[in-house]
């Protein structure tokens, strides 16, 4: 078109005007550490696998998950999910059901027969892992991926440690446990069962091991001195649960009192109910707010007819009665005796007051320090210069399976550095993706999906799994509740809200980049980014 001068203009001409020169601040894309990842004792990339799960790419999600943790089906059942406690979504509605999705992925992997990643090329290094609980299994898995030979020894006749002998089957079905353990063993692991290690040094030298990972757990139930008549049945919870796991449950009678406030106490009480106890009463010296057990476990136990005597201690066990002393909390929140007593009918008393570790095998390991009954370790989980590493319940930490899995992974990397002669490396962590950086307007209102629970009445009498898995639809929904805190999930907001079309969309999975030729630095993209993955930085003068 021979258009008139000046009054008629051709398209595209304004691109000659680089309005980027107006800018005094520029937006930049950042990645931040999501609180779930930050809180995960196993160091899982939760947001990462949720991202894959959101798309229905469950295998990819599972593969991302098992990069860090080879036991998702187990963790999806027994983990007390600090990730959900940390989840920013709590401040919007409810935390994302991370644990349930994890279990869904874990179960799906078992169902589909997905294999763990292949072992790494052989390094020629030999590692001894003592204890086949979550820490030992996790370490074994990671060490195998790093190409080291692993001998996994355990005193029991089967692998799994406390996961098998401490956690009741209604929380962790044995088929699931076996499936995930078998997958690790299939990575060419030398397994030695029914083998008690008495002297770690001796064992190491004899086996010509380059390093040792000590994951013996805490198998000894703590006893306190409670006056009790001879006929009174008193048993510690670890032993009780162990016997149940061996299909050899002790006879406790109809009225069972469990003393303690941790998860083990609740496991014991719920197990007792399933063994036929009509009354299963937990006696705990503090109140509910200060209880160690997870809220979910408490809820489920109460739902099953377990009752709790708060602010009480067991004073003595006399025949068919237990005498309780009432307590009150002082100003610091510690329980103090009140001098008031009451009686409780009981056929048996189960003590769930904590566990100790048997560390006698360290007697000749001179460079290993033991403090308060736990092995002292460096961040790399190294306990001694000679190549002894430790983790799980044997070291000072929260005694949960998930912590143990994390220890196992960390120890594996520590051992790898050690045997390969590298300095231990500290991973650089991103800044935390805090709630205040989010723009929660954009997230759909979506209350969390509850996992189906077995009918309460059935649950009291058998060891079927209490908590069911998510359907695929619910798992997908739950995964999609993830806010993706601190990391771009390609919602296109920045691309859409820029008044200057200065955001370039790179395509699926490629995210975006700014076109600084035209970005005027208004900052709308930062403000409207749902997940806080953009920040403004001053232009350099």
């Amino acid at each position, binding site marked *: 078109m021979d258009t008139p001068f000046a009054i008629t203009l051709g398209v595209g001409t304004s691109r*000659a005007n680089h309005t980027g020169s107006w800018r005094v601040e520029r937006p930049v894309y950042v990645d931040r550490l999501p609180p779930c990842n930050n809180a995960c004792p196993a160091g899982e990339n939760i947001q990462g696998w949720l991202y894959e799960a959101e798309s229905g790419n469950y295998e990819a999600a599972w593969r991302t998950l098992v990069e860090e943790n080879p036991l998702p089906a187990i963790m999806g059942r027994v983990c007390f999910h600090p990730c959900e406690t940390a989840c920013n979504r709590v401040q919007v509605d409810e935390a994302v059901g991370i644990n349930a999705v994890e279990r869904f992925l874990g179960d799906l992997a078992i169902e589909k027969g997905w294999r763990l990643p292949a072992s790494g090329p052989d390094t020629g290094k030999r590692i001894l892992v003592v204890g086949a609980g979550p820490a030992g299994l996790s370490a074994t898995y990671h060490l195998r991926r790093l190409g080291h030979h692993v001998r996994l020894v355990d005193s029991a006749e089967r692998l799994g440690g406390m996961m098998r002998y401490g956690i009741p089957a209604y929380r962790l079905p044995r088929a699931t446990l076996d499936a995930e353990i078998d997958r690790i063993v299939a990575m060419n692991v030398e397994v030695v069962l029914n083998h008690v290690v008495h002297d770690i040094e001796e064992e190491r030298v004899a086996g010509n091991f380059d390093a040792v990972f000590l994951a013996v757990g805490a198998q000894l139930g703590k006893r306190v001195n409670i006056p009790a008549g001879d006929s009174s049945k008193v048993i510690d919870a670890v032993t009780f649960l162990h016997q149940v796991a061996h299909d050899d449950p002790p006879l406790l009678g109809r009225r069972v009192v469990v003393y303690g406030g941790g998860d083990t106490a609740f496991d014991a009480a719920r197990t007792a109910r399933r063994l036929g106890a009509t009354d299963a009463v937990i006696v705990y010296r503090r109140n509910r707010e200060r209880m160690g057990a997870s809220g979910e476990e408490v809820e489920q136990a109460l739902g099953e007819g377990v009752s709790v005597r708060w602010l009480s201690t067991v004073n003595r066990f006399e025949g068919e009665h237990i005498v309780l002393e009432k307590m009150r909390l002082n100003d610091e929140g510690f329980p103090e005796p009140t001098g008031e007593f009451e009686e409780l009918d009981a056929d048996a008393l189960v003590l769930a007051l904590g566990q100790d570790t048997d560390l006698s095998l360290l007697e000749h390991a001179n460079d290993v320090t033991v403090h308060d009954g736990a092995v002292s370790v460096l961040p790399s989980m190294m306990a001694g210069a000679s190549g002894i590493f430790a983790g799980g319940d044997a070291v000072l930490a929260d005694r949960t399976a998930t912590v143990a899995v994390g220890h196992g992974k960390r120890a594996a990397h520590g051992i790898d550095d050690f045997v390969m002669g590298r300095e231990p490396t500290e991973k650089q962590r991103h800044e935390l993706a805090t709630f205040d950086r989010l723009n929660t307007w954009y997230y759909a209102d979506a209350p969390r999906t509850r996992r189906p629970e077995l009918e309460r009445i059935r649950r009291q009498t058998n060891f079927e799994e209490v908590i069911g898995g998510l359907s695929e639809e619910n798992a997908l929904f739950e995964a999609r509740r993830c806010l993706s805190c601190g990391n771009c*999930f390609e*919602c296109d907001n920045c*691309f859409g809200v820029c008044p200057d079309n200065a955001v370039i969309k790179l395509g699926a999975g490629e995210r975006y980049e700014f076109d600084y030729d035209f970005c005027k630095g208004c*900052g709308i993209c930062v403000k409207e980014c749902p997940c806080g993955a953009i920040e403004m930085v001053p232009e350099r003068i």
Partner: protein
Amino acid sequence: MTRQPVHFYQVGSFAVGNRLLSSDDRTVQSQRERTNSIDSGHRACQGCGEALGARYALDAAMRATNGHVVAVNATGCLEVFSTPYPETSWRIPWLHSLFGNAPAVATGVAAALRVKGKSDVRVVAQAGDGGTVDIGFGALSGMFERNDDVLFICYDNEGYMNTGVQRSAATPPAARTATTDAVGPEPGNVFGTGKDLPRIAMAHDIPYVATATVADLHDLERKVERAMEIRGARYLHVLVPCPLGWGSASNDTIHIARLAKESGLFPVFEAENGTVTSVSTIRRRVPVEQYLSLQRRYGHLFGKSPRPDIVARIQAIADNNIARYGLVDDATESMEVNT
């Protein structure tokens, strides 16, 4: 037409995009191949709501018509910042004539297209609030009354921003402009003045009238699409915050538009043939203070000598809108704040 919000994903219907939806269900603005009807290099202020609104609306119209759109523009900010010789930002056929005649020019364009047998090419006329509610009002009313096949879009930034922020008939009460100074017993714009053009448009019984904001892209695009399905005179009134005129932060443009809707001050609805057919209910109701206090044009209501009495009168306007259009449904009622 009822809207089916996308619940099933972390951002549902609220964000621009949604990587898991099929391409057809995504917004136009989420598409790499969107028209960018108004291109980079335009001279709008940082954070300009009008530039955004224009791209949203026209890109949506382009998709709805498979690229068969011509635009007519009234004089105003949008026109000035988009076409200073020798550079134009428009990627679609675009015609600017005068301040007050965009509706009539659009009528002429539509008539020409019809007579040329090109009725598949659709006409969108656009103007700011001055070109719509004030100087262009007569022509607009005429276009409505004749039911000409034009979609007229008003980008309402509530004043004459192009000329330095003077009052228009769309300027809300108490707002300070260069011609409604924040002095005297009733500082800012006078209560009881102004025009409610969407309702005036409805009184013409034209087939389609709707309001929208730049804060809800899905809603805006859907309304443009709906409008393009209909023949005859259609009116879309889009609230576009103006950082310059409103005295707001440039990054707050969308946030403020959202608060305008969530406070009830700017009712978002659509009407067909003179009857309201749908309203966008308030999702997270906020008191008007939250909206007002982000804008320096209302600065005289807060600060050292605050005027809660005036804020209360503005709240009453919001409450009245909420009652008139039913902007609060039972679910949000429970979240209602004390004001």
